[in-house]
């Protein structure tokens, strides 16, 4: 049960949130000129790193807002959370 600091509400239990996968994947502007394989990458392929991961969370049973997080997928430490549209915090501590 992670303890996640919602940028709007503060620290809350993981079961108030919904995990939204890898962050900073913008919908491609050139969807109609991409080949099918690249479109499939956008739809399905994700980095899945062992270590620092930029990802999205939704405070579903709270304020209802999406935000980004930097979490270590091994230790589960939530290093930072930040608003959608804000710059990525550095991965190095």
């Amino acid at each position: 049960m992670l303890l996640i600091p919602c940028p709007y509400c503060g620290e809350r239990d993981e079961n108030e949130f919904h995990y939204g996968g890898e962050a900073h994947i913008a919908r491609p502007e050139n969807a109609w000129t991409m080949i099918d394989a690249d479109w499939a990458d956008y739809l399905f392929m994700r980095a899945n790193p062992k270590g620092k991961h930029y990802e999205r969370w939704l405070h579903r049973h709270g304020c209802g807002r999406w935000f980004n997080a930097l979490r270590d997928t091994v230790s589960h430490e939530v290093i930072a959370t930040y608003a959608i549209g804000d710059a990525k915090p550095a991965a190095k501590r």
Partner: protein
Amino acid sequence: MSRSFRTADGGLVDRKAPLHFTFDGHRYTGFMGDTLASALLANGVHFVARSFKYHRPRGIFSAGSEEPNALIQIGDGPRALPNTRATQVELYDGLAAHSQNNWPSLKYDARGLADRFSRLLPAGFYYKTFMRPKRLWEWYESHIRRAAGMGRVPAGPDPDIYDKRRLHCDVLVVGGGPAGLAAALAAGRSGARVVLADEQARFGGSLLADTAAIGGQSAADWVDAATAELAALPEVRLLPRTTVFGYYDHNYLAIVERVANHLPEPPPHTPRERFWSVRARQVVLATGSHERPLVFAGNDRPGVMLAGAARSYLNRYGVRVGDRVALFTNNDSAYRLAVELVAAGCEVPVIADLRTEPSRHPYAGKADGLGIPVLRGHAVVNTAGRHRIASLKAMPMTEAGDGVTGAARDFNCDALLMSGGWNPALHLFSQAQGTLRFDPAAGTFLPGTAGQAVRCAGTCNGAATLFECLAEGEAAGRAATAASGIAPAAAVPVPAVDGDTPGPVRLLPMIPAADPEIPPNKHFVDFQNDVTAADIGLAAREGYISVEHSKRYTTAGMGTDQGKTSNVNALTLLAAERDAPVPEVGTTTFRPPYTPVTFGALAGRDIGPLFAAVRRTPMQGWHEAQGAAFEDVGQWQRPFYYPRDDETKDDAVAREVLAVRQSVGILDASTLGKIDIKGPDATALLDWVYTNDWDKLGEGRCRYGLMCGEDGMVFDDGVTARFGPEHYVMHTTSGNAERVLGWLEEWLQTEWPHMRVRCTSVTDQYATAAIAGPNARRLLAGLCRDIDLDSAVFPHMAVRTGMVAGLPARVLRVSYTGELSYEVNVPADYGMALWQALLTAGETFGIAAFGTEAMHVLRAEKGFILVGQDTDGTATPADMGMEWAVSKRKDFLGKRSLSRADMMMPDRKHYVGLLTEDPSIVLPDGAHAVETVKPKPPMAAIGHVTSSYFSPTLGRSIALAMIRGGRSRIGETIHFPLEDGRVVAATIATPAFYDPKGERMHG
């Protein structure tokens, strides 16, 4: 006939409060403060169980939660608790205990024959047996199932209540022994919010069996004073009888408090157990250590126990574990115990000490003084006795300790206590992602790097003396307090302790056997799962040399005791087998729970009506009063059909369907998702999320929309109505409302934050009555003065607002049934009033309420899709025959995927209708069609039935299906081989069986 093995006085039991209990029907007496184990031992009962695999007689082995053998069924009836460790059962008056895993009795167990065949049942035997012939597997399985497992499931539902609570604290201290009490005092005196949990009914841990003095007080008095001081501190919560069973992320721990298990039944309004979930700023683990057994032949006989346990029974419970009590040790702690046993009236026939050097422990001298024979450099190589140890055989060891030599000597005894050293209890530390480091001198693992905000103190941290435990506990408590942000109180000097200082230990992976030619298949390592040293050797020789493989193949450490008395011995043996140092072998992961937890505690109050949330509409009371049958649609309860008199389901559905087709029916449509969408960019949002075009939809008009994921697959549909230039209300399927709103919000918040549009769920804010049938307009006209219902003015797929039955209403003219139909929406509190008004006005038309089953039949007759039934997330709009709904002009979510090569393949499954050759046969849902029928599987499948009904309107069966290349096969006959052996033939048809031009709903 039972004798009493109770000492004349002493111990912490209340000798003025006798308790009566039974074990396997025999009656015994104990005292308040006894466990079931101590009370049985006080009556001379050691043999209480049969082992899991070999059904060997087993006795009480330990005095705590590490007990591997004495698994007992407590109580009868629905309150019974199987597989309970007798060492953790607090005795109460009238307790009825039963042995497990034997038939017909503990003493004469038929399955004890398994022991004779033990050579055929080594580790992993089930991977090599019961394979052939394959057709006999189910017969084998029924027998294996009966032979396996322990205990009996309680008869009947659990009558007790269980609670769940949350707890936040600054410092959680796990373990109330000397280190834990010292830590809790240091933190509590600082004013921190402290929780102290211990699995026993009283605090004190190892001090409860110790005769040491702390600061001049007896250990017991020191514990009482510490407990009283903690109880008086307002920010300290004491949780005895509480096991911290799981350590999860970010200092979240799971705890179960056994509130009433020590009573015959819980008092009124009291839970039997309480589950606490705790978020602690800092954790101090003072979880103690477990004594290590010695691995020698015959070490599992009843009467062979851990030495520390015997000491606990003597000093804490006032129980002698036998008359002639032998000891086998590799360290100093046996000597003090031997002296204490003699003082209590036992005879100690021998102490076998693996070490050749004489012990310098002060009590070794006293043992000599009492004339206790000590055999140095000797090993116990075997034991004898059927249901209780009767004698042991000891032999001198070789210099290297790898064999025995010389003459054997036999000693009569009725108990043999083994002391092999101590293993820190590091389960929770490891669960919290702490690493373990091996200490070769102690031959065991100590805490390495912590994974979370946690500190270890006491013997679990490798402390060797009582003084170190108290000092470490105090230091850890202060450090944890400071780390949680509170200034710790001034340090208190650790009191002087009169206790033991341990000497050297002699570690051997295994005690040599008398005959090295015989495999060590009676050298037990894991007592609960019947794993011997021979099994570990066998597994290694078969190639299972990794610790993960060895564990799983031999099942060592996989019992309910989680290897508390076996893991380190098993690893040490594996390392020896591989001729590698123990750290190279490594450890397996410790997983919660530390000790078994009841399902009741995990379920808490979320059972019965509280198991799952149920959503009801404002008209629910009427449906129930009519005796409607209900079905679950997501969390909603929707009326399925309304049986009248003796109607079967089919009768009721047929009547409801015909009522709609012939006159008028009424359906509670309140459950459909409703999303209010407002803003300058509302139309743009709809254009993005739906496949069809929205910019030309006028105010007061409705449009059916199809929604796809970015992968191009249909995931929802529904009608959206336009109320104003920047105002729409979107409808979704009942089960998808939250998902669709989530979809809109995700895109708006993460991809299009510049769009000016707001979405609000109004599903619960409006109740909806849908009236459908040729008389629908006449019915509505009678209740509605201010809306012109003329078809020219209020056409199909339009919306009007006005007053219906005196209630403010939004009326949508939309049809899922294919008949003339209106959906009347009113604010939810008026739902029942609207419903009643329509029913009353509808009497002249013979109005009938219809449920979801009739609705499904009606829409299927029209070929309208039901998302989530006819689609399964792999169907595109084209697959469903709905290319007409796909815009060619604009981009939308999912459109790019529709142009993937795979989406154009002609053999994709298409949505089609099916008409069985025999019109009375209704194909089962999910029936698979095959290209060619063969006598038996495998046969290549070409599609399946998604919806299937008997159509009262057409007087024959209809079905909808997804069939490969279906649309190019209209008119062909395909075959469905069913499970019962019949093969049903059906012709592929277009899905619209009834009124294909849609004339009736446009009327």
